[in-house]
């Protein structure tokens, strides 16, 4: 009997560990871990490198996804606006380049050059960062303060298709409230996006 119970436990455990997203991901208020990931310039970056920053806009994004592309110019503007205030955009591509060749390192280099990315664009080769953060789709935003306490998770704004029709700039509202020392009213939103291509 004990034998069967142990087998049962082993089987159940193997099911749990075999799941693609073992970590449920961060919630607002939790402290995120730092990472060390390769940028399109060949250098490795960690959040600790930006020791003068007031916070970070970490965005899981990629080359191929139409939603990520629809937000590309807005991400560039966000960086231009907020890096001056000490909050840079850190873009991370977590997709498996075997499943989505358009998201491989060379294409990241090409896209960031063609579209003149002013922010660093990192590759999450092991997908460990995306899993730990609980990123599920592209684009997926995590705004955190200098201590890496997460203040906002979700969408950039309320209209992916028509930037001129945006009514609620969720992310900017969260950053502006944080910069004024006020509470962030909407801390979590959802958006349709391309599911991350897990290995």
């Amino acid at each position: 009997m004990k034998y069967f119970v142990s087998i049962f436990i082993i089987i159940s455990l193997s099911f749990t560990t075999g799941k693609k997203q073992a970590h449920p991901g961060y919630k607002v208020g939790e402290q995120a871990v730092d990472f060390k990931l390769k940028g399109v310039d060949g250098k490795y970056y960690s959040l600790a490198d930006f020791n003068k920053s007031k916070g970070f806009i970490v965005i899981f994004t990629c080359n191929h996804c139409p939603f990520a592309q629809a937000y590309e110019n807005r991400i560039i503007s966000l960086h231009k606006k907020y890096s001056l205030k000490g909050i840079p955009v850190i873009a991370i591509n977590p997709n498996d380049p075997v499943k989505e060749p358009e998201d491989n390192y060379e294409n990241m280099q090409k896209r960031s050059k063609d579209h003149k990315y002013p922010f660093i664009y990192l590759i999450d080769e092991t997908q460990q960062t995306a899993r730990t953060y609980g990123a599920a789709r592209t684009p997926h935003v995590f705004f955190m303060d200098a201590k890496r306490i997460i203040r906002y998770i979700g969408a950039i704004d309320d209209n992916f298709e028509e930037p001129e029709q945006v009514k609620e700039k969720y992310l900017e509202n969260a950053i502006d409230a944080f910069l004024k020392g006020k509470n962030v009213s909407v801390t979590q939103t959802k958006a349709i996006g391309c599911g991350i291509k897990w290995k």
Partner: protein
Amino acid sequence: MNRIIYLFVFILCQLNLSKAQNIPRLKTNDLQYWTLQNSDTIFVINFWATWCKPCISELNSFEKINKLYADKKVKVILINNDFKKQYETRLKPFVKEKNIKSSVFFMDESNPNSWIDRVNTDWGGAIPATWIIQKSSNYEKFIEGSVSFEKLKEMIDPLIK
């Protein structure tokens, strides 16, 4: 002779036109349709887009389900999430070209944050995603990510009386 060819081509076009399904546009509140009615119909609802590769790869599984359970109370609903500007240029031609038999709907909302939680609060919004409902047995299952034909069948079979 030419006349007959023209007529033949014309008839063929007509046949083709009549086959392409109409694609209704959905608003947030329309999503309640499948959860409110107390029916023993099994709704197999898939969220997809024409540009989403994993969605396209699994489309055939849903079409197979639709065909396999044609005489049962199983209804396959494919809710499309392309951009509004692609409704005419991409979605309609795609549905016609692939000759999709399951019912296709278009999610006509610009802010997904307004409706994602209505489907499932655990859903982050990544597609593909599949939602299976049978109201009469209080069955509801949500899967974020791809799902196989076998897995769908495994979930549907026990619900059929």
